[in-house]
């Protein structure tokens, strides 16, 4: 008996037709309530499982990383002392700036408005470097806005539904944003590098670029405000013969284990 005349094929064909209808409804946005319900449905199980697994995982990872934690602690202590010294100098500069601003009558920029979002899914099948969040257009999240974690940019919104949105992580090879080097104000571009890091690119050769310099957003894109920290310059990977300088960027954000992010609204 030919397969196309069998009950199995009839059911398969019916499933295909139903799928076509569902794809059509999804493109129209009519499946959003169903999507929200589906995204929320396994959450009780996820919370229960994470509640059991997280302490165990933390314990074993802490034991495994004890030596690293100790050396990181020493390094961070000396960094704190260095930053405290810098802080004293910056406070002095800030006082001077405030006085000058008052005298010149400049309008101060308002503080950024942030939307706190929970990460629902890390796109668990390893196919894209993106996250699904539990906030959408109802919370004021729109496509193109920046997502930050611990003060550092971790991605930008690529899709925003009514109650959920998707962000593309900045470590993705498809990610890029305008940037500048904070210390020299030189313009640059930050790109993701195949899920494992960030690259600071197209820095003019004439500009000074050293390890420890900070890369921030330049504010050229109207949806991403300027001066959002992206990362700290690591190794310089270009040579003097290259057209532009390139360097790796180090970000303290843990891209593998993000649980909460903030979307920066204008």
């Amino acid at each position: 008996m030919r397969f196309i005349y069998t009950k199995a094929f009839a059911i398969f064909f019916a499933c295909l037709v139903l799928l076509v209808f569902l794809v059509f409804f999804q493109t129209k946005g009519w499946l959003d309530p169903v999507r929200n319900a589906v995204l929320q449905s396994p959450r009780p199980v996820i919370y229960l499982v994470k509640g059991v697994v997280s302490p165990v995982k933390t314990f074993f990872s802490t034991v495994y990383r004890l030596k690293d934690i100790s050396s990181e602690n020493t390094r961070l202590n000396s960094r704190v002392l260095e930053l405290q010294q810098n802080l004293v100098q910056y406070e002095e500069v800030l006082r001077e700036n405030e006085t000058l601003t008052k005298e010149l009558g400049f309008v101060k920029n308002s503080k950024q408005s942030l939307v706190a979002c929970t990460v629902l899914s890390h796109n668990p099948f390893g196919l894209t470097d993106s996250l699904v969040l539990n906030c959408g257009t109802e919370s004021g999240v729109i496509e193109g806005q920046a997502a930050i974690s611990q003060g550092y940019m971790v991605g930008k919104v690529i899709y925003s539904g009514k109650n959920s949105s998707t962000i593309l992580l900045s470590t993705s090879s498809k990610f890029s944003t305008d940037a500048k080097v904070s210390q020299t104000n030189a313009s640059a571009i930050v790109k993701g590098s195949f899920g494992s890091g960030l690259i600071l690119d197209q820095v003019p050769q004439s500009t000074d670029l050293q390890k420890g310099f900070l890369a921030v957003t330049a504010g050229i894109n109207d949806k991403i405000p300027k001066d959002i920290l992206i990362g700290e310059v690591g190794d310089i990977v270009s040579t003097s013969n290259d057209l532009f300088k390139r360097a790796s960027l180090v970000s303290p954000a843990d891209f593998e284990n993000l649980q909460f992010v903030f979307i920066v609204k204008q």
Partner: protein
Amino acid sequence: MKYIIYLFLIVLLLGINLGLFGQMPIAKQVPNLLFLFTIFFALEKKGYDFYFIAFISGLLLDFFYTGFFGSFTLAFLISSSCLHLLSDTFIVFELNWKSLSGLLFGALAVAYLVVWLYGLMVYKFNWTHDFESFSLFSRYFLINFLYNWALLYPMYIVYTLLKQGVDSLTIRRRGIVR
């Protein structure tokens, strides 16, 4: 009644997949418990329950996947249909772990190929701005297969327990009707 039990178990497996295995990736890969569940149903010689399992599992995964909607549903339907056809027509011997591993490899390859082709097709029709390159799928395929393979036996136990439960429920209901 059995379809409600299937639906409940699918949601439970999805929660375990995201909550437990989402925290234990290996080279960024996590197993797909729903796919393993679908495979066991597809290998049954009689019955078409696997279509329900494949359709619902694929739909749920599509809602979590950030690619174009329908990729996983189509992949699950096609790979489970191929498995069922193979099991019905060609496989006359009782399945052992060697043959099951080979079938898992083939089914996973078909599923990921369908997801990639679907993504490429919607990109060509301009329904989406980009698509995932084939290297993204091929680079981690072996690790993904091995991780799924390691969970084959536990999922088989879950499947067996479920079938026993559903069968005893069906017998009990028939007894009440009589």
